[in-house]
Protein backbone atom coordinates (compact mmCIF):
# COMPACT_ATOMS: atom_id res chain seq x y z
CA UNK A 1 0.00 0.00 0.00
CA UNK A 2 1.26 3.47 -0.83
CA UNK A 3 2.38 5.62 2.06
CA UNK A 4 1.27 9.28 1.98
CA UNK A 5 4.72 10.46 0.97
CA UNK A 6 4.81 7.97 -1.87
CA UNK A 7 1.45 9.28 -3.00
CA UNK A 8 2.76 12.81 -2.82
CA UNK A 9 5.80 11.91 -4.89
CA UNK A 10 3.71 10.08 -7.44
CA UNK A 11 1.53 13.17 -7.79
CA UNK A 12 4.55 15.42 -8.17
CA UNK A 13 5.98 13.11 -10.78
CA UNK A 14 2.76 13.10 -12.70
CA UNK A 15 2.50 16.89 -12.61
CA UNK A 16 6.14 17.04 -13.71
CA UNK A 17 5.48 14.77 -16.68
CA UNK A 18 2.49 16.90 -17.63
CA UNK A 19 4.64 19.99 -17.68
CA UNK A 20 7.10 18.17 -19.91
CA UNK A 21 4.30 17.06 -22.18
CA UNK A 22 3.06 20.65 -22.44
CA UNK A 23 6.60 21.61 -23.60
CA UNK A 24 7.18 23.75 -20.53
CA UNK A 25 10.85 24.27 -19.68
CA UNK A 26 12.01 22.97 -16.32
CA UNK A 27 14.02 25.57 -14.38
CA UNK A 28 16.63 25.05 -11.61
CA UNK A 29 14.29 25.89 -8.71
CA UNK A 30 11.44 23.70 -9.97
CA UNK A 31 10.73 20.34 -8.40
CA UNK A 32 12.13 17.49 -10.49
CA UNK A 33 12.46 13.73 -9.98
CA UNK A 34 15.88 12.82 -8.68
CA UNK A 35 16.43 10.49 -11.61
CA UNK A 36 15.76 13.40 -14.01
CA UNK A 37 18.37 15.47 -12.18
CA UNK A 38 20.94 12.65 -12.19
CA UNK A 39 20.29 11.90 -15.84
CA UNK A 40 20.86 15.56 -16.73
CA UNK A 41 24.01 15.83 -14.64
CA UNK A 42 25.39 12.79 -16.38
CA UNK A 43 24.58 14.01 -19.88
CA UNK A 44 25.44 17.69 -19.40
CA UNK A 45 28.72 17.09 -17.60
CA UNK A 46 29.73 14.59 -20.27
CA UNK A 47 28.94 17.29 -22.80
CA UNK A 48 30.95 19.90 -20.88
CA UNK A 49 33.96 17.57 -20.50
CA UNK A 50 33.78 16.83 -24.23
CA UNK A 51 34.08 20.51 -25.07
CA UNK A 52 37.12 20.88 -22.82
CA UNK A 53 38.89 17.66 -23.84
CA UNK A 54 37.88 18.41 -27.42
CA UNK A 55 40.38 21.28 -27.44
CA UNK A 56 43.27 18.81 -27.34
CA UNK A 57 43.26 17.01 -30.71
CA UNK A 58 42.85 20.21 -32.72
CA UNK A 59 45.00 22.17 -30.31
CA UNK A 60 47.89 20.02 -31.52
CA UNK A 61 47.68 21.83 -34.86
CA UNK A 62 47.35 25.46 -33.84
CA UNK A 63 51.13 25.67 -33.55
CA UNK A 64 51.53 23.88 -36.89
CA UNK A 65 48.80 25.56 -38.96
CA UNK A 66 50.20 26.17 -42.45
CA UNK A 67 49.24 29.85 -42.74
CA UNK A 68 48.80 32.65 -40.21
CA UNK A 69 45.18 33.07 -41.26
CA UNK A 70 44.49 29.39 -40.59
CA UNK A 71 46.33 29.63 -37.29
CA UNK A 72 44.14 32.52 -36.15
CA UNK A 73 40.93 30.79 -37.27
CA UNK A 74 41.80 27.52 -35.57
CA UNK A 75 42.87 29.31 -32.40
CA UNK A 76 39.52 31.11 -32.31
CA UNK A 77 37.68 27.85 -32.99
CA UNK A 78 39.40 25.97 -30.18
CA UNK A 79 38.82 28.95 -27.92
CA UNK A 80 35.10 28.67 -28.68
CA UNK A 81 35.17 25.06 -27.48
CA UNK A 82 36.64 26.16 -24.15
CA UNK A 83 33.87 28.74 -23.95
CA UNK A 84 31.28 26.02 -24.63
CA UNK A 85 32.78 24.03 -21.80
CA UNK A 86 32.26 27.01 -19.49
CA UNK A 87 28.62 27.56 -20.55
CA UNK A 88 27.90 23.89 -19.96
CA UNK A 89 29.69 23.69 -16.60
CA UNK A 90 27.65 26.62 -15.33
CA UNK A 91 24.45 25.13 -16.73
CA UNK A 92 25.29 21.84 -14.95
CA UNK A 93 26.05 23.69 -11.70
CA UNK A 94 22.42 24.87 -11.64
CA UNK A 95 21.59 21.26 -10.77
CA UNK A 96 23.45 21.54 -7.48
CA UNK A 97 26.80 20.01 -8.37
CA UNK A 98 30.10 21.90 -8.38
CA UNK A 99 32.65 22.06 -11.17
CA UNK A 100 35.27 20.57 -8.82
CA UNK A 101 33.06 17.52 -8.29
CA UNK A 102 32.48 17.20 -12.02
CA UNK A 103 36.22 17.42 -12.72
CA UNK A 104 36.91 14.81 -10.06
CA UNK A 105 34.43 12.48 -11.74
CA UNK A 106 36.17 13.01 -15.05
CA UNK A 107 39.62 12.30 -13.61
CA UNK A 108 38.31 9.27 -11.72
CA UNK A 109 36.87 7.95 -14.97
CA UNK A 110 33.29 7.85 -13.70
CA UNK A 111 32.24 10.67 -16.03
CA UNK A 112 32.85 10.26 -19.74
CA UNK A 113 33.60 12.58 -22.61
CA UNK A 114 32.94 12.08 -26.32
CA UNK A 115 34.88 9.05 -27.55
CA UNK A 116 35.82 10.86 -30.78
CA UNK A 117 38.47 12.91 -28.98
CA UNK A 118 40.47 9.76 -28.26
CA UNK A 119 41.58 9.57 -31.87
CA UNK A 120 44.83 11.25 -32.90
CA UNK A 121 45.19 14.17 -35.31
CA UNK A 122 47.94 13.08 -37.69
CA UNK A 123 47.91 15.64 -40.50
CA UNK A 124 46.61 19.11 -41.23
CA UNK A 125 43.71 17.51 -43.12
CA UNK A 126 42.50 16.09 -39.80
CA UNK A 127 41.74 19.64 -38.69
CA UNK A 128 39.53 20.01 -41.76
CA UNK A 129 37.88 16.65 -41.23
CA UNK A 130 37.16 17.40 -37.56
CA UNK A 131 35.50 20.72 -38.35
CA UNK A 132 33.47 19.26 -41.17
CA UNK A 133 32.50 15.92 -39.66
CA UNK A 134 32.91 16.08 -35.88
CA UNK A 135 31.51 19.59 -35.45
CA UNK A 136 28.96 18.73 -38.14
CA UNK A 137 27.79 15.72 -36.13
CA UNK A 138 27.84 17.79 -32.94
CA UNK A 139 25.52 20.35 -34.55
CA UNK A 140 23.01 17.69 -35.60
CA UNK A 141 22.89 16.57 -32.00
CA UNK A 142 22.93 20.06 -30.51
CA UNK A 143 20.23 21.53 -32.75
CA UNK A 144 18.01 18.79 -31.45
CA UNK A 145 19.05 19.65 -27.88
CA UNK A 146 18.02 23.30 -28.30
CA UNK A 147 14.53 21.93 -27.54
CA UNK A 148 15.59 19.89 -24.52
CA UNK A 149 13.28 20.16 -21.50
CA UNK A 150 15.77 21.63 -19.02
CA UNK A 151 15.85 25.41 -19.50
CA UNK A 152 19.53 26.19 -18.74
CA UNK A 153 20.68 23.31 -20.98
CA UNK A 154 18.43 24.41 -23.86
CA UNK A 155 19.66 28.00 -23.60
CA UNK A 156 23.31 26.92 -23.52
CA UNK A 157 22.66 24.88 -26.65
CA UNK A 158 21.16 27.83 -28.50
CA UNK A 159 24.28 29.90 -27.77
CA UNK A 160 26.58 27.05 -28.72
CA UNK A 161 24.81 26.24 -31.98
CA UNK A 162 25.32 29.81 -33.18
CA UNK A 163 29.10 29.33 -32.89
CA UNK A 164 29.20 25.79 -34.22
CA UNK A 165 28.23 26.74 -37.75
CA UNK A 166 31.50 28.71 -38.02
CA UNK A 167 33.35 25.60 -36.89
CA UNK A 168 31.89 23.47 -39.63
CA UNK A 169 32.50 26.15 -42.24
CA UNK A 170 36.20 26.51 -41.38
CA UNK A 171 36.63 22.74 -41.47
CA UNK A 172 34.83 22.31 -44.77
CA UNK A 173 36.82 25.19 -46.24
CA UNK A 174 40.08 23.45 -45.29
CA UNK A 175 38.81 20.26 -46.94
CA UNK A 176 37.77 22.17 -50.07
CA UNK A 177 41.22 23.73 -50.48
CA UNK A 178 42.90 20.33 -49.98
CA UNK A 179 40.51 18.51 -52.29
CA UNK A 180 41.26 21.01 -55.04
CA UNK A 181 44.96 21.12 -54.27
CA UNK A 182 47.89 18.93 -55.24
CA UNK A 183 47.73 15.14 -55.45
CA UNK A 184 49.39 14.97 -52.03
CA UNK A 185 46.79 17.29 -50.56
CA UNK A 186 43.90 15.31 -52.05
CA UNK A 187 45.38 12.12 -50.64
CA UNK A 188 45.74 13.80 -47.27
CA UNK A 189 42.07 14.84 -47.36
CA UNK A 190 40.89 11.35 -48.34
CA UNK A 191 43.02 9.76 -45.64
CA UNK A 192 41.51 12.06 -43.04
CA UNK A 193 37.98 11.23 -44.18
CA UNK A 194 38.86 7.52 -44.06
CA UNK A 195 40.05 7.77 -40.48
CA UNK A 196 37.38 10.13 -39.09
CA UNK A 197 34.22 8.84 -40.77
CA UNK A 198 33.46 5.83 -38.58
CA UNK A 199 34.48 7.40 -35.27
CA UNK A 200 32.17 10.29 -36.17
CA UNK A 201 29.22 7.93 -36.68
CA UNK A 202 30.00 6.47 -33.26
CA UNK A 203 29.48 9.91 -31.71
CA UNK A 204 25.72 9.37 -31.86
CA UNK A 205 26.02 6.48 -29.43
CA UNK A 206 24.71 2.90 -29.47
CA UNK A 207 21.70 1.77 -31.49
CA UNK A 208 18.39 2.83 -29.95
CA UNK A 209 17.70 -0.81 -29.08
CA UNK A 210 20.93 -0.97 -27.03
CA UNK A 211 20.86 2.47 -25.46
CA UNK A 212 20.55 2.23 -21.69
CA UNK A 213 19.19 5.70 -20.98
CA UNK A 214 17.37 6.48 -24.21
CA UNK A 215 13.74 5.58 -23.43
CA UNK A 216 13.48 7.57 -20.25
CA UNK A 217 15.46 10.50 -21.68
CA UNK A 218 13.03 10.69 -24.56
CA UNK A 219 10.00 10.57 -22.27
CA UNK A 220 11.46 13.43 -20.22
CA UNK A 221 12.38 15.19 -23.45
CA UNK A 222 15.98 15.54 -22.35
CA UNK A 223 16.66 13.92 -25.71
CA UNK A 224 14.33 14.90 -28.51
CA UNK A 225 15.50 12.52 -31.21
CA UNK A 226 16.99 9.06 -30.91
CA UNK A 227 20.62 8.11 -31.58
CA UNK A 228 19.74 6.31 -34.79
CA UNK A 229 17.53 9.12 -36.10
CA UNK A 230 20.30 11.68 -35.55
CA UNK A 231 22.94 9.41 -37.06
CA UNK A 232 20.77 8.91 -40.14
CA UNK A 233 20.32 12.65 -40.49
CA UNK A 234 24.08 13.15 -40.36
CA UNK A 235 24.80 10.45 -42.96
CA UNK A 236 22.15 11.87 -45.29
CA UNK A 237 23.61 15.37 -45.17
CA UNK A 238 27.24 14.24 -45.48
CA UNK A 239 26.97 12.25 -48.70
CA UNK A 240 26.44 15.27 -50.94
CA UNK A 241 29.14 17.20 -49.10
CA UNK A 242 31.69 14.44 -49.71
CA UNK A 243 30.61 14.22 -53.34
CA UNK A 244 31.15 17.96 -53.79
CA UNK A 245 34.68 17.51 -52.47
CA UNK A 246 35.26 14.55 -54.78
CA UNK A 247 36.11 12.39 -51.78
CA UNK A 248 34.85 8.87 -51.13
CA UNK A 249 33.11 7.97 -47.86
CA UNK A 250 34.76 4.72 -46.71
CA UNK A 251 31.62 2.58 -46.62
CA UNK A 252 30.82 0.07 -49.38
CA UNK A 253 27.30 -0.37 -48.06
CA UNK A 254 26.45 3.31 -48.44
CA UNK A 255 23.56 3.48 -50.92
CA UNK A 256 20.41 5.54 -51.47
CA UNK A 257 17.26 3.68 -50.44
CA UNK A 258 14.17 4.83 -52.35
CA UNK A 259 11.69 3.18 -50.03
CA UNK A 260 13.17 4.60 -46.84
CA UNK A 261 14.05 7.88 -48.48
CA UNK A 262 17.38 7.73 -46.68
CA UNK A 263 20.86 6.43 -47.31
CA UNK A 264 21.54 2.90 -46.12
CA UNK A 265 24.93 2.53 -44.52
CA UNK A 266 27.21 -0.13 -43.05
CA UNK A 267 27.47 -1.36 -39.48
CA UNK A 268 29.70 0.42 -36.99
CA UNK A 269 32.50 -1.61 -35.38
CA UNK A 270 30.90 -1.73 -31.94
CA UNK A 271 33.88 -3.52 -30.39
CA UNK A 272 36.02 -0.52 -31.23
CA UNK A 273 33.31 1.78 -29.89
CA UNK A 274 33.25 -0.03 -26.54
CA UNK A 275 37.04 -0.24 -26.30
CA UNK A 276 37.40 3.52 -26.79
CA UNK A 277 34.58 4.17 -24.32
CA UNK A 278 36.29 1.90 -21.80
CA UNK A 279 39.43 3.98 -21.98
CA UNK A 280 41.41 1.93 -24.49
CA UNK A 281 41.25 4.09 -27.60
CA UNK A 282 44.43 5.37 -29.25
CA UNK A 283 44.68 8.57 -27.16
CA UNK A 284 42.59 8.03 -24.00
CA UNK A 285 45.67 7.93 -21.81
CA UNK A 286 47.18 11.08 -23.31
CA UNK A 287 43.92 13.04 -23.02
CA UNK A 288 43.43 12.10 -19.39
CA UNK A 289 47.09 12.81 -18.64
CA UNK A 290 46.69 16.31 -20.07
CA UNK A 291 43.60 16.93 -17.92
CA UNK A 292 45.33 15.55 -14.82
CA UNK A 293 48.30 17.81 -15.36
CA UNK A 294 45.99 20.80 -15.79
CA UNK A 295 44.18 19.83 -12.59
CA UNK A 296 47.42 19.60 -10.62
CA UNK A 297 48.30 23.11 -11.69
CA UNK A 298 44.75 24.25 -10.91
CA UNK A 299 45.28 23.16 -7.29
CA UNK A 300 48.13 25.51 -6.46
CA UNK A 301 46.53 28.31 -8.49
CA UNK A 302 43.23 27.91 -6.67
CA UNK A 303 45.13 27.81 -3.38
CA UNK A 304 46.77 31.12 -4.24
CA UNK A 305 43.46 32.68 -5.28
CA UNK A 306 41.81 31.69 -2.00
CA UNK A 307 44.76 32.82 0.11
CA UNK A 308 44.86 36.15 -1.66
CA UNK A 309 41.12 36.68 -1.27
CA UNK A 310 41.43 35.92 2.44
CA UNK A 311 44.29 38.42 2.85
CA UNK A 312 42.24 41.02 1.03
CA UNK A 313 39.29 40.36 3.31
CA UNK A 314 41.44 40.79 6.42
CA UNK A 315 43.07 43.92 4.99
CA UNK A 316 39.74 45.55 4.19
CA UNK A 317 38.26 44.67 7.58
CA UNK A 318 41.29 46.02 9.48
CA UNK A 319 41.51 49.01 7.16
CA UNK A 320 45.07 48.30 6.05
CA UNK A 321 45.91 49.21 2.54
CA UNK A 322 46.57 46.36 0.14
Amino acid at each position, binding site marked *: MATPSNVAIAELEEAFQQRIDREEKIEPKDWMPDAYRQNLIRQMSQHAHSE*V*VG*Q*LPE*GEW*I*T*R*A*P*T*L*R*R*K*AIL*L*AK*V*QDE*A*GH*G*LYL*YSATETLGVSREELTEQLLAGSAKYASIFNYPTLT*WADVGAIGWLVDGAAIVNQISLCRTSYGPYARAMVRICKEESFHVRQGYE*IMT*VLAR*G*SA*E*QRAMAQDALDRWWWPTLMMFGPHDTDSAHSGRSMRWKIKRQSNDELRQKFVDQSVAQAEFLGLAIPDKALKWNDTRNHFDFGEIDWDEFRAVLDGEGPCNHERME*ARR*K*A*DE*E*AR*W*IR*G*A*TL*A*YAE*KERVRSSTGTES
Partner: protein
Amino acid sequence: MRETTYDPAHIEYVLRLGDNALILGQRLCEWSGHSALVEEDVAMANIALDYIGRARDLLTLACELDGGNQSEDDLAFKRDEEEFKNFLLCELPIGDFAWTIVRQVLLDTYHFHLYDQLQRSSDQKLATIAAKSIKESTSHLRHCSHWLTRLGDGTDESHRRVQDALNEQWRFTGELFAADAIDEFALAVGIGPDLSDLRERWHAQIASILHHATLTQPIDAPPVAGGRQGLHTEHMAGLLACMQSVQRAYPGLEW
Protein backbone atom coordinates in the same frame (compact mmCIF):
# COMPACT_ATOMS: atom_id res chain seq x y z
CA MET B 1 54.57 54.71 -61.65
CA ARG B 2 56.93 56.09 -59.06
CA GLU B 3 58.79 53.51 -57.07
CA THR B 4 58.98 54.44 -53.41
CA THR B 5 61.94 52.85 -51.75
CA TYR B 6 62.14 52.59 -48.04
CA ASP B 7 65.27 52.49 -46.00
CA PRO B 8 66.18 48.89 -45.11
CA ALA B 9 66.43 50.01 -41.49
CA HIS B 10 62.77 51.08 -41.62
CA ILE B 11 61.77 47.65 -42.93
CA GLU B 12 63.94 45.91 -40.36
CA TYR B 13 62.38 47.96 -37.57
CA VAL B 14 58.86 46.85 -38.53
CA LEU B 15 60.01 43.28 -39.10
CA ARG B 16 61.41 43.08 -35.57
CA LEU B 17 58.12 44.23 -34.12
CA GLY B 18 56.33 41.65 -36.25
CA ASP B 19 58.67 38.86 -35.16
CA ASN B 20 58.19 39.67 -31.48
CA ALA B 21 54.42 39.44 -31.91
CA LEU B 22 54.60 36.27 -34.00
CA ILE B 23 56.96 34.30 -31.79
CA LEU B 24 55.25 35.24 -28.53
CA GLY B 25 51.85 34.52 -30.11
CA GLN B 26 53.13 31.16 -31.30
CA ARG B 27 54.22 30.28 -27.77
CA LEU B 28 50.88 31.32 -26.29
CA CYS B 29 49.08 29.02 -28.75
CA GLU B 30 50.60 26.10 -26.87
CA TRP B 31 48.30 26.75 -23.91
CA SER B 32 45.14 25.83 -25.83
CA GLY B 33 43.48 22.97 -23.99
CA HIS B 34 46.25 22.76 -21.40
CA SER B 35 45.41 25.64 -19.06
CA ALA B 36 44.73 24.80 -15.45
CA LEU B 37 41.47 26.73 -15.55
CA VAL B 38 39.18 26.62 -18.55
CA GLU B 39 38.72 30.39 -18.09
CA GLU B 40 42.44 30.76 -18.76
CA ASP B 41 42.18 28.67 -21.93
CA VAL B 42 39.81 31.37 -23.13
CA ALA B 43 41.93 34.25 -21.81
CA MET B 44 45.26 32.95 -23.15
CA ALA B 45 43.68 32.27 -26.53
CA ASN B 46 42.47 35.88 -26.54
CA ILE B 47 45.96 37.17 -25.90
CA ALA B 48 47.44 34.78 -28.47
CA LEU B 49 44.87 35.90 -31.03
CA ASP B 50 45.82 39.52 -30.47
CA TYR B 51 49.51 38.76 -30.91
CA ILE B 52 48.97 36.67 -34.05
CA GLY B 53 46.73 39.38 -35.47
CA ARG B 54 49.33 42.03 -34.67
CA ALA B 55 52.06 39.89 -36.25
CA ARG B 56 50.02 39.59 -39.43
CA ASP B 57 49.52 43.37 -39.63
CA LEU B 58 53.19 44.10 -38.97
CA LEU B 59 54.62 41.43 -41.26
CA THR B 60 52.26 42.54 -44.02
CA LEU B 61 53.45 46.11 -43.52
CA ALA B 62 57.08 44.95 -43.67
CA CYS B 63 56.30 43.19 -46.97
CA GLU B 64 54.65 46.30 -48.40
CA LEU B 65 57.62 48.46 -47.43
CA ASP B 66 59.89 45.92 -49.06
CA GLY B 67 58.19 46.18 -52.44
CA GLY B 68 55.34 43.74 -51.99
CA ASN B 69 57.00 40.65 -53.43
CA GLN B 70 56.51 38.62 -50.27
CA SER B 71 53.58 37.83 -48.00
CA GLU B 72 53.12 37.48 -44.24
CA ASP B 73 53.24 33.72 -44.73
CA ASP B 74 56.51 33.87 -46.66
CA LEU B 75 58.03 35.68 -43.71
CA ALA B 76 56.54 33.38 -41.09
CA PHE B 77 57.09 30.04 -42.77
CA LYS B 78 60.00 30.37 -45.16
CA ARG B 79 62.66 32.21 -43.25
CA ASP B 80 65.45 30.42 -41.43
CA GLU B 81 66.20 30.84 -37.77
CA GLU B 82 68.89 33.51 -38.14
CA GLU B 83 66.45 35.67 -40.13
CA PHE B 84 64.05 35.99 -37.19
CA LYS B 85 64.69 39.11 -35.12
CA ASN B 86 62.54 38.66 -32.03
CA PHE B 87 63.63 39.20 -28.43
CA LEU B 88 64.88 36.00 -26.83
CA LEU B 89 62.31 36.37 -24.05
CA CYS B 90 59.52 35.77 -26.60
CA GLU B 91 60.84 32.39 -27.69
CA LEU B 92 61.42 30.78 -24.28
CA PRO B 93 59.09 27.82 -23.58
CA ILE B 94 55.75 28.52 -21.86
CA GLY B 95 56.76 26.89 -18.58
CA ASP B 96 54.01 26.74 -15.98
CA PHE B 97 51.25 29.28 -15.45
CA ALA B 98 53.50 31.36 -13.17
CA TRP B 99 56.21 31.51 -15.82
CA THR B 100 53.76 32.56 -18.53
CA ILE B 101 52.17 35.24 -16.35
CA VAL B 102 55.56 36.73 -15.46
CA ARG B 103 56.63 36.88 -19.08
CA GLN B 104 53.33 38.46 -20.09
CA VAL B 105 53.65 41.13 -17.43
CA LEU B 106 57.20 41.96 -18.51
CA LEU B 107 56.33 42.05 -22.21
CA ASP B 108 52.82 43.47 -22.02
CA THR B 109 54.14 46.36 -19.95
CA TYR B 110 56.82 46.87 -22.59
CA HIS B 111 54.29 46.70 -25.41
CA PHE B 112 51.90 49.00 -23.60
CA HIS B 113 54.49 51.79 -23.45
CA LEU B 114 55.98 51.00 -26.84
CA TYR B 115 52.69 51.10 -28.74
CA ASP B 116 51.57 54.13 -26.81
CA GLN B 117 54.53 55.94 -28.35
CA LEU B 118 54.18 54.30 -31.74
CA GLN B 119 50.71 55.83 -32.07
CA ARG B 120 52.65 58.98 -32.93
CA SER B 121 54.99 57.24 -35.39
CA SER B 122 55.82 59.09 -38.60
CA ASP B 123 54.91 55.85 -40.38
CA GLN B 124 51.14 56.29 -40.64
CA LYS B 125 50.44 52.62 -41.11
CA LEU B 126 52.52 51.71 -38.11
CA ALA B 127 50.68 54.37 -36.08
CA THR B 128 47.36 52.77 -37.08
CA ILE B 129 48.54 49.32 -35.99
CA ALA B 130 49.76 50.88 -32.74
CA ALA B 131 46.38 52.45 -32.02
CA LYS B 132 44.80 49.00 -32.18
CA SER B 133 47.64 47.31 -30.28
CA ILE B 134 47.55 49.70 -27.35
CA LYS B 135 43.97 48.68 -26.56
CA GLU B 136 44.95 45.02 -26.65
CA SER B 137 48.05 45.51 -24.53
CA THR B 138 46.05 47.46 -21.96
CA SER B 139 43.69 44.56 -21.47
CA HIS B 140 46.46 41.91 -21.51
CA LEU B 141 48.32 43.83 -18.86
CA ARG B 142 45.22 44.24 -16.70
CA HIS B 143 44.54 40.51 -16.85
CA CYS B 144 48.10 39.33 -16.30
CA SER B 145 49.07 41.82 -13.59
CA HIS B 146 45.97 40.84 -11.61
CA TRP B 147 47.17 37.28 -11.78
CA LEU B 148 50.67 38.28 -10.79
CA THR B 149 49.29 39.99 -7.69
CA ARG B 150 47.19 36.97 -6.71
CA LEU B 151 50.06 34.55 -7.25
CA GLY B 152 52.72 36.76 -5.66
CA ASP B 153 50.57 37.58 -2.65
CA GLY B 154 48.89 34.15 -2.51
CA THR B 155 50.50 31.09 -0.93
CA ASP B 156 54.17 30.38 -0.28
CA GLU B 157 54.16 28.02 -3.22
CA SER B 158 52.60 30.45 -5.70
CA HIS B 159 54.91 33.23 -4.47
CA ARG B 160 57.96 31.03 -4.92
CA ARG B 161 56.88 30.04 -8.42
CA VAL B 162 56.43 33.60 -9.70
CA GLN B 163 59.53 34.87 -7.91
CA ASP B 164 61.63 32.06 -9.44
CA ALA B 165 60.22 32.79 -12.90
CA LEU B 166 60.96 36.47 -12.46
CA ASN B 167 64.56 35.79 -11.33
CA GLU B 168 65.07 33.54 -14.32
CA GLN B 169 63.55 35.92 -16.89
CA TRP B 170 65.02 39.15 -15.62
CA ARG B 171 68.32 38.78 -17.47
CA PHE B 172 66.38 38.66 -20.77
CA THR B 173 64.83 42.10 -20.20
CA GLY B 174 68.00 44.09 -20.89
CA GLU B 175 67.61 43.20 -24.56
CA LEU B 176 64.31 45.09 -24.74
CA PHE B 177 66.11 48.41 -24.34
CA ALA B 178 69.50 47.82 -25.98
CA ALA B 179 69.34 50.40 -28.79
CA ASP B 180 71.31 49.63 -31.94
CA ALA B 181 71.65 51.35 -35.32
CA ILE B 182 68.13 50.32 -36.36
CA ASP B 183 66.57 51.89 -33.27
CA GLU B 184 68.68 55.02 -33.68
CA PHE B 185 67.50 55.34 -37.27
CA ALA B 186 63.88 54.84 -36.20
CA LEU B 187 64.25 57.50 -33.51
CA ALA B 188 65.96 59.93 -35.86
CA VAL B 189 63.21 59.78 -38.51
CA GLY B 190 60.39 59.68 -35.99
CA ILE B 191 59.27 56.11 -36.67
CA GLY B 192 60.07 54.73 -33.24
CA PRO B 193 60.51 55.99 -29.67
CA ASP B 194 63.54 56.74 -27.57
CA LEU B 195 64.39 53.46 -25.87
CA SER B 196 66.01 55.06 -22.82
CA ASP B 197 62.77 56.92 -22.18
CA LEU B 198 60.82 53.71 -22.75
CA ARG B 199 63.11 51.96 -20.30
CA GLU B 200 62.34 54.49 -17.56
CA ARG B 201 58.60 54.19 -18.06
CA TRP B 202 58.83 50.39 -18.10
CA HIS B 203 60.98 50.28 -14.97
CA ALA B 204 58.70 52.57 -13.04
CA GLN B 205 55.61 50.56 -13.86
CA ILE B 206 57.27 47.17 -13.32
CA ALA B 207 58.55 48.33 -9.94
CA SER B 208 55.04 49.27 -8.89
CA ILE B 209 53.50 46.02 -10.21
CA LEU B 210 56.14 43.93 -8.43
CA HIS B 211 55.70 45.85 -5.21
CA HIS B 212 51.96 45.33 -5.35
CA ALA B 213 52.52 41.60 -5.94
CA THR B 214 54.96 41.46 -2.97
CA LEU B 215 57.73 40.35 -5.32
CA THR B 216 61.38 41.36 -5.18
CA GLN B 217 62.90 42.97 -8.21
CA PRO B 218 65.99 40.93 -9.18
CA ILE B 219 69.38 42.59 -9.26
CA ASP B 220 70.46 43.51 -12.76
CA ALA B 221 72.78 40.83 -14.15
CA PRO B 222 74.66 40.91 -17.45
CA PRO B 223 71.87 40.81 -20.04
CA VAL B 224 71.40 37.89 -22.39
CA ALA B 225 70.77 39.14 -25.91
CA GLY B 226 71.19 38.21 -29.54
CA GLY B 227 67.65 37.83 -30.92
CA ARG B 228 67.87 41.02 -32.91
CA GLN B 229 71.00 39.78 -34.65
CA GLY B 230 69.34 36.43 -35.35
CA LEU B 231 71.32 34.64 -32.64
CA HIS B 232 68.70 32.69 -30.71
CA THR B 233 68.38 30.36 -27.76
CA GLU B 234 68.31 26.60 -28.19
CA HIS B 235 64.53 26.75 -27.93
CA MET B 236 64.05 28.58 -31.20
CA ALA B 237 64.87 25.67 -33.51
CA GLY B 238 62.12 23.54 -32.03
CA LEU B 239 59.60 26.36 -32.17
CA LEU B 240 60.29 26.98 -35.85
CA ALA B 241 60.44 23.29 -36.78
CA CYS B 242 56.95 22.95 -35.36
CA MET B 243 55.51 26.18 -36.78
CA GLN B 244 56.95 25.67 -40.26
CA SER B 245 56.53 21.89 -40.50
CA VAL B 246 53.65 21.76 -43.01
CA GLN B 247 55.02 24.48 -45.26
CA ARG B 248 58.48 22.90 -45.22
CA ALA B 249 57.14 19.44 -46.00
CA TYR B 250 54.94 20.65 -48.88
CA PRO B 251 56.51 23.80 -50.30
CA GLY B 252 54.64 26.08 -52.65
CA LEU B 253 51.06 24.93 -52.03
CA GLU B 254 47.90 26.78 -51.09
CA TRP B 255 46.29 25.95 -47.75
